[in-house]
């Protein structure tokens, strides 16, 4: 077997093992929360009889280990169960919301990733001069701004001062693609502002690092233009660190945007998770937690594999 294939298979196997470990951790973490689902649902209305009734109905009286394995078995057969709080089918609820999460993340990524890399290349080309300082200054400012401040700012600017977009970004099945794009415009802008700097700085740093090498000097001596050198000689060798940062940011766009979702009323997974955490709806919390973990593990695995593939020393081992 080709050694690359073995490496890839190893990574995938490791990823799956990690996922299993994460599932156990999620389950334990949720168990350790104070109070239980019945109490959280009844809230101010909890009387001892109502509590006992609800616990019995929800099967909360069974030992934790039994519930963990029941849950794990369900996931392997594609059955995530039903939400304890409103009896809705979890897989179905998650399906649509996951789609919305990926749509928002996708829109933001399509703009942010190329933009960050191009800005990074330009900043590296003019390192230490005004374009570099301008780009770094602006992106560092936007990343330093808390998300909700950026969100309120764009709401004020683009719905009140210049009313071109709408403050509430909900999307529904049946909306046209363009209507959806229009709806998510504001959260996309905020997310782009938030993730731009990290990727841009990493691209710049990785390129500048490579620019110190002897072969870049050779290319310069050959008389190549600075942009050609960066694009043809420096960038391919800086891919691995850039990709890993890009993947981290993509993962963030999928799992970490709950604040943006709340501010814009966007109906995606983050808000869904938070609602169910406050109600101690264990099956939902576990299912969403596992999905988020899977996204992280998958994207990091992808970064690893791309890193391996982009490294000639690993691609052509002696």
């Amino acid at each position, binding site marked *: 077997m080709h050694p690359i294939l073995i490496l890839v298979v190893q990574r995938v196997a490791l990823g799956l093992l990690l996922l299993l470990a994460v599932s156990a951790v999620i389950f334990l973490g949720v168990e350790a929360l104070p*109070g239980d689902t019945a109490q959280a649902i009844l809230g101010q209305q909890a*009387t001892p009889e*109502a509590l006992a009734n609800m616990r019995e109905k929800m099967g909360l009286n069974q030992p934790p280990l039994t519930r963990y394995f029941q849950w794990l078995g369900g996931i392997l057969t594609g059955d995530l169960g039903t939400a304890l709080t409103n009896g809705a089918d979890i897989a179905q609820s998650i399906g649509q919301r996951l789609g919305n999460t990926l749509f928002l993340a996708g829109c933001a990524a399509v703009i942010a990733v190329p933009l960050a890399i191009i800005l990074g290349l330009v900043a590296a080309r003019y390192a230490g001069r005004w374009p570099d300082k301008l780009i770094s200054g602006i992106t560092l400012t936007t990343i330093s701004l808390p998300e909700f401040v950026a969100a309120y700012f764009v*709401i*004020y600017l683009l719905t009140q001062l210049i009313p071109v977009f709408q*403050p509430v970004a909900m999307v529904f099945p049946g909306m046209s693609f363009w209507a959806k794009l229009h709806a998510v415009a504001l959260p996309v802008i905020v997310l782009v502002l938030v993730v731009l700097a990290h990727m841009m700085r990493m691209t710049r740093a990785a390129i500048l690092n490579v620019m110190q090498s002897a072969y870049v000097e050779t290319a310069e001596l050959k008389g190549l233009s600075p942009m050609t050198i960066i694009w043809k000689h420096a960038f391919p060798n800086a891919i691995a660190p850039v990709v890993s940062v890009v993947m981290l940011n993509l993962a963030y766009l999928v799992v970490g945007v709950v604040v943006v979702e709340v501010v814009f*009323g966007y109906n995606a997974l983050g*808000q869904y998770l938070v609602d169910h955490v406050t*109600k101690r709806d264990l099956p939902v919390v576990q299912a969403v937690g596992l999905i988020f973990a899977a996204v992280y593990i998958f994207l990091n695995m992808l970064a690893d594999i791309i890193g391996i593939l982009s490294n000639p020393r690993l691609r052509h081992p002696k």
Partner: protein
Amino acid sequence: MNDKHKQLDWMVAQAKAGRMTRREFVGRTTALGVSAGLASALFGKAALAQEAKKGGVIRLGMQGGESTNSLDPAVAASEVPYQVNMTWGEMLCDVNPDGTIDLRIAEEISSSPDATEWKFKIRQGVEYHGGGTVTAEDVVATLKRHTDEKAQSGALGIVQGITEMKAEGDMVTLKLNAANADLPYLMADYHLMIQPGGGVDNPAAGIGAGPYSVVVNEPGVRHTFKKHANYFDSTIGHADEIEILVINDNTARTAALQSGQVHMINRVDPKIVDLLKGVAGVQIKAVAGRGHYVFIMHVDKAPFDNNDLRMALKYAINRGEMVEKILGGLGKPGNDFPINAAYPLFDDKFEQREYDAAKAAEYYKKSGHDGSPIVLRTAPGAFPGAVDAANLFAASANAAGIPLQVKLEPDDGYWSNVWNVEPFCASYWGGRPVQDQMYTTAYLSTADWNDTKFKNARFDELLLAARGELDEAKRKGMYSEMAQILRDEGGLILPMFNDFVSGVSDTIGGWVDDPNGELMNGRAQVRCWLNA
């Protein structure tokens, strides 16, 4: 006489244009010698005469919805499910803004002289969304479902007192274990939506006899409805479609109203009300209701088992300051009993209890408290501004020499670990339509939610006696005595009644202030119309 006519005409015109509230109208017309009943009817006609426009889509942006919500009316607890159920559901009867009973599915209500047996005549031909009509059997099945503990109904306490339910033809007869003159008000509870077959097979189906039928139900995101073509009451349900969007974030909700994405929002933050008043196209509706914020002491636990200490604390709180600073002036100071002018049979004889450091210090000294810190627990979620309110309370109490100390608790688990567990904490109540229900829910010795552990034999005796008392003057006197007992001996510190503050677009017509609940008691989307 001529002059009076002119004035009356002018006032009717004002009411038609929506420039006068019902209270103002009734007050000013009765001054002209018109009877209060006639004035109220005139106002209703005038308000209707604003010419309801048909059609369009009314959109609401609301706080208080979660993806965990269900359409089962039995378990509705927060604002969005309440509003949603009021859109598709219909109850036996409802409560009008002036506190009278509005007959809905029941067409006639009568009781035996001792108020232990009630008859509800069911309106014939009221259609469900899916077809079929409401029968007396459905009504009985619905009430029965709520008595089953497994249904986890918020109305369990209400239906528990019914010992016998009978459906005969178009008549439902309910026999009670004890007299209750308020039963129609209890049947207006928002959990008691009449469902086909009682909703036993599928309680969360969202099928009822209300003015709109459910189209999309995405809990925590949005709920959409279309007009129920065969709805029995043509005077309400003007828009073709209703959309309720869940927008829990304050800023986004306000921005959505300002930008015209929605027509009405609930829970306007008191801090920004003054700013919003200057915005074109938006009206702020601050409506005095029965909701109130409280600090509750367990009267059976030291040091709160000492009434002198309780009185010291009651005098050590600055109510006026709280209304100003916590409610932004949108509320009224409370008087340590949970009833205000929004309730029928309210007695306004009680003097407003004010902050009095000298009296507080005197009572504190009399209580002989050892000087150890008195801990008040609070959390941001106890009520909006609960942490600030507790700190204000501590500051004014400390100034009177009472060692009150605030302990901040996390929102998470507050209602299970602190409220009803710790002896002194911050909380809130939404109020109930009638005094009996409020007292029965939280101040009767045996009440599940007796969160001050208040046990007073005379109070219980009066409460039970008042239920069967059909003479209103006598009943008012009983409630007045109960208020007195609670005010002077209870564990309740009630600094303020909060207004419902909503934001409504100028394009909305037909708004009426309703003390029974937020957004016209959950019916704004059904009773209002779009002028644009």
